[in-house]
């Protein structure tokens, strides 16, 4: 089994076998992070550029830790301190960086398709760390890794994703991934945050949160960008919480072994009650830990090519 593509731009183009390979590899990577000496030489001498045009603390740190645990050299390039401030275009930035001989770019960008845009201008491997509202494949993979750890698999699993569906790149990657792996996905949110034609992706859509919760094995809450309220997508945070906030009481409608997930950072008292976030069903911090293993797995699988046959 192997990866059939050079880059990780989205989940949409991955096969179920490739997803399983990534998760299996992530399982093995966890052992490295638990050692007193948390480093292996697998990517020694490889250079990874973390190209972040949008603010991101957790995704960027998670990638950076993964790169360092595999001994890659890292260069952090963030929009606020870079030549982009001076008006350089994305392609020009890449053309310049290209002469530093990077082996991989990990890129976060506000525009969907940013990876495809720079693809012709680099020989390096591209990993999408979030492009606009398009995809965020490593988040979906770390979510899947957490689900598989807790539930053993995906087939027939009832998954509810609730919140700001329209503006979430996490949700798109998760729909592709979960439906490919055989889970049943329901989306729930205020009508103003549900884009049309979602059912064409093979998911159920509703605005009735209480009914949507019934019997669910996995409940994934999405972050509400507080500035959306100002745009009038919902009347007030309190009202949002009243209809779409996950409380302990509401959670009782789900399966008794339900797990609660959130990509972070959480708005306590908006998407969910603190008692839920810190409660026994929450796997939110496991997601953070799994993020490092999954990113190590992806870096290893895309950059760690070697001779397939062991030479004894």
């Amino acid at each position, binding site marked *: 089994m192997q990866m059939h593509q050079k880059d990780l731009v989205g989940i949409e183009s991955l096969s179920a076998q490739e997803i399983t390979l990534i998760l299996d590899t992530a399982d093995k990577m966890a052992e490295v992070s638990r050692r007193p000496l948390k480093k292996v030489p*697998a990517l020694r001498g490889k250079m990874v550029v973390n190209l972040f045009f949008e603010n991101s603390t957790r995704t960027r740190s998670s990638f950076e830790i993964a790169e360092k645990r595999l001994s890659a050299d890292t260069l952090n390039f963030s929009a606020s301190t870079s030549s982009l401030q001076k008006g350089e275009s994305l392609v020009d930035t890449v053309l310049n960086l290209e002469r530093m001989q990077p082996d991989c770019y990990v890129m976060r960008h506000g525009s969907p398709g940013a990876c495809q845009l720079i693809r012709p201008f680099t020989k390096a491997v591209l990993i999408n760390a979030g492009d606009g509202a398009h995809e965020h494949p490593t988040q979906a993979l770390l979510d899947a890794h957490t689900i598989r750890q807790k539930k053993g698999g995906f087939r027939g699993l009832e998954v509810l994703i609730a919140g700001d569906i329209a503006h979430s790149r996490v949700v798109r990657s998760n729909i592709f991934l979960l439906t490919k792996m055989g889970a049943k996905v329901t989306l729930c949110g205020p009508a103003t945050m549900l884009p049309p034609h979602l059912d064409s992706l093979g998911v159920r859509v509703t605005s009735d949160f209480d009914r949507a919760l019934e019997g669910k094995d996995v409940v994934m809450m999405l972050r509400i960008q507080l500035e959306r309220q100002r745009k009038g997508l919902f009347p007030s945070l309190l009202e949002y919480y009243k209809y779409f906030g996950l409380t302990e009481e509401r959670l009782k409608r789900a399966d008794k072994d339900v797990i609660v997930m959130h990509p972070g950072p959480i708005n306590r008292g908006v998407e969910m009650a603190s008692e839920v976030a810190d409660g026994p069903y929450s796997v939110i911090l496991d997601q953070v830990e799994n993020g490092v293993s999954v990113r190590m797995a992806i870096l290893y*699988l895309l950059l760690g090519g070697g001779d397939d046959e062991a*030479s004894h």
Partner: protein
Amino acid sequence: MKRKKLFDAAGIQRSLGRLALEVAERLHGCQDVVLIGIHRRGVPLARRVAKALEKAENIVLPVGALDINLYRDDFSSVGTAPVLRGTQVEFPIEGKTVILVDDVLFTGRTIRAALDALVDIGRPARVQLAVLVDRGHRELPIQADYVGLSLSTRREDHVELRLKEIDGEDSLILESPESGAGKRGKR
């Protein structure tokens, strides 16, 4: 390709039994000894050596598994990343005698990687190497302490050990290119 079966299940079990006895004799009592197999086929072999020692000498040794794929020196060559099997060493190796177990000793590069992997998880008092087959052609100054069977091979030959636990049967097979075919072995 000429395929020749050198050993069947009985032959493999016999040389493993001999190897286990040699370990018991050299490390009398096997105080503070642990066995660590190198994925893939070194792992079932390590378990078998442990079983043989238990049966013959009533000695019970901990058995671990080492994945060396994150320590290989041939990553720059083209190809895909090898499938990880994971390292499972659930006991401390500090101050222990570690016996690394592998199936076929050839260039020595796997063992070099295994030594790197091992020192990252602890500092053993000493490390020894047990292999079922030594087929020569070393590229590094590495040798085994315990050898089940020494084979004289040509460099382009292919030695394949098949084990019940992984391949469904026990056998040792020597594959050699037809003479004059001129095809150089990949290994």
